[in-house]
């Protein structure tokens, strides 16, 4: 439910409670005012009749526009007092409908005689007032609801504009872009607070992210020199006069240094991929790179007695950095070789739509969703550091390739789908629309 709907419902609810109360009050006050006016008029009539009497004229029964009765009273009268009666006339044959009558009786002493003057008039009945009120309330409600419903969206669009703009900015916000969030100024207190909070939070996240990244980059780079020292010293050591046992120790150390070096290089590569250091606008001939990679691994494939099936279409050009093309293909093909079985096969097919690498191998033991995560290995193959596929995935991500792994008919299948011409802009548009849909006003 939208915020504006909530507010609208709340407002309408309050209106629905207030209107009956309000109409009771209105009814009461209208009735009171009518009665008061009628009573005042009748009092006035009585005074005029008294004046006529004083002049010796005999007032007619209907002279003052209402029915008047003058009675002589014996004995003293409560001078200056009024007796007001009010009654509903229900069976007056003169009237079509029942009616309400107000009578005012006043006492006067004229020329030593006591009189009681009574005048009466018909006033609007409660039902008539109520009927009027009903109509007006109905119209009021219709107009109110109509206008509220019609304008609520517009109002919320205007009033909540800063909120939506913050939301939109947040949705587009990415730590990786390393840009701080700039929020438009607003005069609404809540939005000010929100923007202030969001701004502080994202700034902190960006700062933390940057310092963390800087740290890991520096750490990786700083590790390179000590690794180079260890490696060179081990190499010099292995040149010296050493015994068999010592040689084994050196070999183990060399293996460990090698592994460390690979992990470190891969991590550096990953962080550089995340830094978009490999952005390019140029297309490379993936066909050529694929052919080269297949040739380069020809020896390994032959050594492992694997069968290679290759269908590489010529002229497959993809927007990709040349180094990344190498790394991508090398990683995928070397993986296909490493995780193969003797006398197995590898199929490499490349066309304008996608690159598919299939290889025979033992079926995956666990779930394969996290195959592309760092340091996750499908099989406990001790010789791998488990970062190759993660690099492949990162390369695919920054170049908006779709990578998919599945296992079917005893083949491990890795499919890299390239963005189709025109599809990329459409994707962007879709994204925009999607974004819009999500924060539609």
């Amino acid at each position, binding site marked *: 439910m939208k915020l504006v709907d909530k507010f609208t419902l709340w407002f309408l609810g309050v209106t629905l409670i207030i209107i009956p109360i309000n109409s009771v009050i209105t009814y009461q006050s209208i009735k009171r005012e009518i009665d008061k006016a009628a009573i005042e008029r009748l009092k006035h009539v009585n005074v005029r009749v008294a004046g006529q009497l004083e002049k010796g004229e005999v007032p007619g029964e209907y002279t003052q526009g209402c029915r008047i009765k003058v009675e002589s009273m014996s004995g003293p009268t409560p001078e200056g007092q009024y007796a007001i009666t009010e009654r509903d006339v229900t069976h007056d044959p003169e009237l079509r409908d029942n009616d309400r009558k107000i009578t005012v009786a006043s006492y006067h002493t004229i020329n030593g005689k006591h009189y009681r003057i009574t005048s009466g008039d018909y006033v609007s009945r409660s039902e008539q007032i109520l009927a009027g009120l009903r109509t007006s309330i109905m119209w009021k409600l219709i107009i109110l609801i109509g206008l509220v419903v019609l304008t609520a969206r517009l109002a919320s669009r205007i009033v909540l504009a800063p909120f939506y703009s913050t939301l939109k900015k947040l949705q587009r916000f990415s730590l990786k872009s390393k840009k701080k969030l700039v929020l438009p100024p607003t005069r609404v207190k809540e939005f000010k607070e929100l923007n202030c909070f969001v701004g502080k939070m994202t700034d902190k996240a960006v700062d933390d992210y940057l310092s963390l990244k800087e740290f890991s980059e520096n750490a990786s*780079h*700083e590790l*390179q*020199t000590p*690794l*180079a*020292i*260890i*490696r*060179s*010293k081990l*190499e*010099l050591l*292995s*040149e010296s006069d*050493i015994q*068999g046992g010592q*040689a*084994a120790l*050196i*070999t183990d150390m*060399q*293996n460990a*240094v*090698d*592994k460390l*070096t*690979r992990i470190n*290089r*891969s991590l*550096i*590569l990953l962080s*550089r991929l995340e830094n978009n*250091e*490999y952005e390019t606008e140029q297309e490379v001939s993936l066909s050529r790179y694929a052919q080269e990679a297949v*040739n*380069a691994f*020809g*020896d*390994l494939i032959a*050594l492992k007695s694997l069968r290679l099936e290759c269908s590489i279409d010529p002229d497959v050009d993809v927007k990709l950095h040349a*180094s990344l093309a*190498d*790394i991508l293909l*090398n*990683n995928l093909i*070397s*993986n296909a070789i*490493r995780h193969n079985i003797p006398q197995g096969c590898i199929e490499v097919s490349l066309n304008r739509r996608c690159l598919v690498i299939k290889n025979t191998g033992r079926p995956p033991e666990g779930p394969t969703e996290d195959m592309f995560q760092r340091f996750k290995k499908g099989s406990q*193959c001790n*010789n*791998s*550091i*488990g*970062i*190759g596929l993660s*690099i492949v995935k990162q390369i695919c991500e920054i170049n908006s390739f779709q990578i998919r792994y599945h296992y079917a008919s005893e083949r491990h299948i890795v499919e890299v789908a390239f963005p189709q011409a025109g599809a990329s802009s459409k994707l962007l548009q879709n994204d925009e629309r999607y974004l819009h849909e999500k924060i539609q006003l």
Partner: protein
Amino acid sequence: MKVLLIEDNLELASSISEFLAREGYICEVSYNIRDAQDKLISFQYDCVLLDIMLPDGNGLQILSFMRQERIQSSILILSAKNSLDDKVAGLEEGADDYLTKPFHLPELHARLRAIYRRKKLNGSNMITFNEISLNIDTLEAHVNETLLDVTRKEFDLLLYFIVNKNRVLSRQSIAAHLWGDYTDNLANFDFVYQHVKNIRKKISAAKGTDYISTVYGLGYKFNTSKQ
């Protein structure tokens, strides 16, 4: 061959200079840019090994300095920061090759040799050792005038052996030389073994001497003293 090593890390500098000295290079070491510039003006070097991150500035400064001073030495950049920008900038500024730390010393040697060959011995693309001769351009290997049927990798491996003759070459170093750094492929050691085995077989088949021997469990060595 006279080499100037510009590297601020004492331990690494000593490893490299010791290794190069054993190969018969005359190796001088500078630990900062100022000293390197003095040396470059005063003496002539065949090759400069240049670290990018130096205490008193960026190693790339040396490149422009050398261009200004018209110093013709070859340049091999050694960098811990294998960032693409540095590599491109370095090669654009006139460096001949780029090697990322941590590297294998035999690899450094092989690169140095390759640069040296390209610069000094232009025209001559033949590398000969006794009965084995390698043509760098055509990638043909001959033993006793018999053409060996070797693959590209086997050729590279044989070249690597001959350049680093009488040195222990670890399997790691051979794998890195043949397949580069980024393939997450430690299982390549089996392949190294296979390649070495094949090469030895092919040389023997052509009636060549089997110079390549296994060293303890450390790796392999191209042993020139074998008869």
